């Protein structure tokens, strides 16, 4: 360590040795104890440090809260901006990186027409027209049991 390097350190980082580079701190501190010029440089830098310390920011709790609220509301808006179709597409089409984990999604979507067909089919079979007892009797009356027997023979 020499005076030139010490001057550069103090003029750049100030008098607080904690601000100095860790590699040079011990050497620079030792040098400052042995050199009167170094001591004088430290005093000058300390004066500026004291001035800089005067610039304290006012309480900014409200600002911080406003920032956080703003970010969270931007988040909500962003998720609302996505339309239903876009959200469905995002859900159906997996991220390329995560394809293996989300392969079930397109498979399930591909099965959906089949499932829909089965559901419609089941609904139709349940809704078949049931005859009342009177309608059943009148239908029987139109059949000709004798001719049926002859045709069988």
């Amino acid at each position, binding site marked *: 360590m020499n005076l030139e390097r010490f001057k*550069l350190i103090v003029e750049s980082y100030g008098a607080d040795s904690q601000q100095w580079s860790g590699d040079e701190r011990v050497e620079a501190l030792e040098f400052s104890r042995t050199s009167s010029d170094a001591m004088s440089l430290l005093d000058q830098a300390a004066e500026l440090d004291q001035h800089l310390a005067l610039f304290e920011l006012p309480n900014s709790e409200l*600002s911080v809260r406003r920032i956080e609220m703003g970010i969270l509301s931007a988040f909500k808006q962003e998720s609302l901006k996505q339309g239903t179709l876009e959200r469905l597409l995002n859900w159906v089409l997996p991220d390329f990186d995560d394809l293996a984990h989300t392969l079930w999604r397109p498979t399930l979507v591909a099965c959906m027409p089949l499932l829909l067909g089965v559901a419609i089919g089941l609904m139709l079979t349940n809704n078949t027209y049931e005859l009342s007892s009177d309608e059943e009797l009148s239908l029987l009356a139109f059949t000709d049991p004798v001719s049926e027997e002859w045709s069988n023979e």
Partner: protein
Amino acid sequence: MVEEDERQIIERILAGSDLAFRKILDLHTQRIFNYVRRMTSNSIEAEDLAQETFIRFWVSRDRFDPDRVKLTTWLHRIAHNLCIDYFRRRQLQERQVPVQSDSQDSPDTDYELSIRAAVVNKALMTLSERQRSAIVLCHYQNFSQHDAAHILGLSVHALESLLRRGRSKLKQILAEELE
């Protein structure tokens, strides 16, 4: 590079957890606001820029590598770039619509800060953006030389040079103003 707790939070953020992101907000909002506030000298603009910092971080979170850089350094780098954009925009606006000579001062400075703090603030605002940023990062935000240089995209040697010139200019101004 990062502590275990922070690493877990970051991993959850990278996986898209907004709850983890809220935790990061709790931990870093104040510090980022202080940096931007000292850079712009305007609380309202600083709120907007701090907000934008976190939104940009979230949007481009997959670009953040916790093994290479600390989260706080990364956030400050985003904030610094936003400040530079802000100053460029303002310069352009001032060229188009000339404003009064005290445009460097924010409307709230004198009301919010004590007189002596306002003097230091004013002196800081006379520095170039890079000199001011170097001093704010090293002196007020307590970054190491290496991290401050990373935020500014400079070598440590170039950072030292900025700091030295900035402090020298401040010394002259404050000696006149505070005596």
